């Protein structure tokens, strides 16, 4: 019985090792990847992770990007909350969704006004709001999305 148990244990350990041998190496955290000093490691995408992800979103290039209001003082406004905004352009290019994250419900009104102003900047002839979505996020934050098309 003892020999059987030991054999099963060896087989179990070896099986785990073999499967792991063929497992693709996961991307380590950027700080660990840098610390390894391994110039041959595979390129990983950190554009949506950690501080780097935050900065990528904050300063996304292109005419539709760079909608980040991390502080009311940065934009000269006196809003009480930090907001982050991103937009998705659908394949049809007719419907556009603009989203913003707010820290608390009290700031939703101001954030919505900011989004509407952004939409007006893009739609010189006016626009039609087709949908308004509120989604809960971790830590009590709320994501507000406006779906619209320009006239």
């Amino acid at each position, binding site marked *: 019985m003892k020999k059987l148990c030991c054999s099963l244990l060896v087989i179990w350990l070896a099986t785990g090792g073999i499967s792991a041998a063929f497992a693709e190496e996961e991307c380590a955290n950027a700080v660990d990847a840098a610390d390894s000093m391994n110039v*041959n490691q595979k390129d990983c995408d950190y554009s949506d992770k950690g501080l780097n992800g935050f*900065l990528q979103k904050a300063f996304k290039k292109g005419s539709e990007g760079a909608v980040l209001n991390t*502080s009311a003082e940065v934009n000269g406004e006196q809003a009480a909350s930090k907001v982050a905004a991103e937009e998705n352009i659908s394949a049809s290019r007719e419907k556009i969704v603009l989203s913003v994250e707010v820290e608390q419900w009290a700031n939703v009104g101001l954030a919505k006004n900011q989004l509407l102003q952004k939409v007006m900047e893009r739609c010189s002839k006016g626009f039609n709001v087709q949908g308004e979505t509120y989604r809960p996020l971790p830590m009590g934050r709320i994501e507000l999305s406006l779906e619209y098309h320009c006239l």
Partner: protein
Amino acid sequence: MKKSLLAFAVASLFPMAAVADVIVYGKANVSIQHADEQAADDSQVELVSNASRIGVKGGEDINSSLKVIYQFEYQTEVDDGTNGTQTFGQRNIYLGLQGTAGTFIGGHFDTPTKVAQEKIDLFNDLEGDITQIFKGEIRASNIVQYTTPTFGGGFAGSVAYVTEENNGTTPRTGDGAGVSASFGYTSPVFYVGVAMDQDVEAEDTDLVRLVGRLNVGAFQFGLLAENYDNGIVDEDGALVSALWNLTDKWVAKAQYGQSEVKMADGETASIGVDYKMTKAATLYSYVTTVENDVIAPASQRDDTYVGVGMDFKF
């Protein structure tokens, strides 16, 4: 510093067109530990920043087969805000060229021998770090390095030339340059490497290091052996480490090393438990002892450290 100001300050250093090729990263690692050290009159509780850092790395393609790469990394002391007289201390910093024939980098960074330890030091940057009893943990200044591309499924080698300049953080005595080299095979399951330093720490000082790692199921086993010869002492040391992934969140670790390389009868033992709250945030605890058999009372060690801490990577 407000997140908004930090973002603005960092991003203002780079044109928008280059943001996509830049990776900003860092980590904060702080522990509170009870230190009972023979050299001190009383034991004390202390807050320790363990190699917390912030850095930037990236690259830019020159053509389809050549790329400029760089990294700037700085250490910051989360506990008291100063590293001696500085707010930031330099860690690995380099500029280089990467191509199909290999990678050249120059700057201030870990020697191939130091890098060869890979992941076997389970208490890296803590009191149980292998640097307590081993040598070869050198971050050299004025160093130029060539690394081969990976070949044969996982083989790679590096050779570094530490120039004759003596104005870096590594005090080097005598004349002449130093060489550090390593060669090994790496895979997620298995790693073996051999490394050597010649005249890196000082003239006529040589070091050879052999490292191995094996991952089997939920376990990882590590081994490091080292020989150090500076013409006066010719000593050896060895260390073993073991890690057990109890669950996807809990990890148990143990490490033991004996070495004459850095001090007479140097010995370190550590056990610890990690709890991974997320991929970026880990709570950890450890108990570490460091002992030696040095004659000089001021250098004697019979130290015990018990601590808990948090590591957050961003």
